């Protein structure tokens, strides 16, 4: 695992170099509370100026970039995790307010072209998915995040436990694969236009993003909460 570690990002590097090497990290900046216009400043400087914990910022960037990287529990416990829940909430907002409506606009246009009953079934497949994702997120916002906030502020919170979360945490990327297959393999050639190409890229991007999001919840948030819960008990 040493080789992975040496490739991970460090705080002294320029933020602009990080983004140049991995442009997909751009979409993370807003969610992490960093605005563009950071010039040539180092990651540490930009984070400090934006009130973002540097180690937390790096942790998220590393997870997004290196597929095999799973942070160890000591790494997670050493990192200031106050930014975690706000980050997850902003991510939910980003998916629900930006990405999904964007995809829906393209699919709407495709459904119009398909017309009739087929068009309706096609768009309702997506609307159903969107609703499932929204319910998934609102469950986390209603039950899980307040629990984490309480534990982090040192309150003893027994109303919920992270074991319940693991039990019910469902996969939200699966149906995107279905959608992807339908759109690029099975739509009739008559509806093929820019919308189809655009939406394929959008779905692929969202799928990758959601995979990382799930990863962060399962490999960072869950171990953190398990630790906090057992620390409370003792």
């Amino acid at each position, binding site marked *: 695992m040493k080789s992975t570690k040496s490739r991970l990002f460090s705080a002294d590097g320029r933020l602009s170099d990080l983004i140049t090497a991995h442009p997909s990290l751009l979409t993370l900046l807003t969610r992490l509370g960093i605005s563009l216009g950071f010039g040539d400043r180092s990651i540490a400087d930009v984070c400090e100026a934006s009130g973002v914990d540097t180690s937390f910022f790096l942790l998220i960037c590393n997870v997004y970039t290196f597929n095999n990287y799973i942070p160890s529990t000591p790494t997670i416990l050493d990192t200031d995790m106050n930014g975690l829940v706000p980050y997850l909430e902003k991510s939910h907002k980003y998916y629900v307010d930006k990405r999904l409506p964007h995809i829906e606009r393209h699919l709407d246009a495709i459904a119009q072209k398909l017309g*009739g*009953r*087929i068009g309706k*079934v*096609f768009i309702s*497949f997506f609307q*159903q998915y969107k609703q499932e994702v929204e319910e998934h997120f609102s469950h986390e916002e209603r039950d899980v995040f307040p629990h984490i906030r309480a534990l982090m502020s040192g309150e003893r919170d027994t109303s919920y436990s992270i074991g319940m979360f693991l039990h019910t945490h469902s996969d939200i990327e*699966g*149906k995107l*694969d*279905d*959608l*992807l*297959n*339908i759109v690029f*393999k*099975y*739509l*009739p050639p008559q509806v093929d236009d820019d919308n189809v190409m655009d939406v394929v890229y959008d779905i692929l991007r969202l799928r990758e993003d959601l995979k990382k999001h799930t990863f962060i919840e399962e490999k960072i948030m869950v171990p953190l909460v398990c630790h906090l819960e057992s620390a409370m008990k003792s």
Partner: protein
Amino acid sequence: MKKRVLIVEPSEVITEGLKSILEDQIRFKVLDPVADVDKLAERIIASRPDILLINPTMVDNVMQLPGKQEMTVVALVYQYVSRDALKNYDAIVDICDSRATIIETLAQATADESSAAHSNYELTKRETAVLVELAQGKTNKEIADSLNVSVHTVISHRKNITHKTGIKSVAGLTVYAMLNNLLDESAII
């Protein structure tokens, strides 16, 4: 028709790895592997494989194998083998190849007609019948009763449908069925 694959390889680790890659695929059926060269000729005659996936160091002359003309002989390479020794093979699989490459190599080597590769992915009549009933919101049990087959068979058809189309959810399969004009519009709930 599934292609029957006979693996001839002394290493159990490699045999098992190949088995797990190929058995994942509905188009291949992996026969009991052969690790012992002395039994090779006998096994080929008895099991009549479509594909012989063989470590070239195990045979002196591949042309002398029984039934050489009736089967596709693929070399399984993981060490240096001279070019000359490989010239009588129909294809070459390197064990460092990715899963997808290995499958593709075997599929291409056995594609006798140009249409064969496509038809593998088309749904069979039975699968189409299952799909149509699924799209109408029926349960596995209801489908089994209506088609007069076991629930187990329905599940196996569903697996094949998903494998071929890449679509898992019933809602997604309904859209697929409609796009392929498999449903009478009034039949959809």
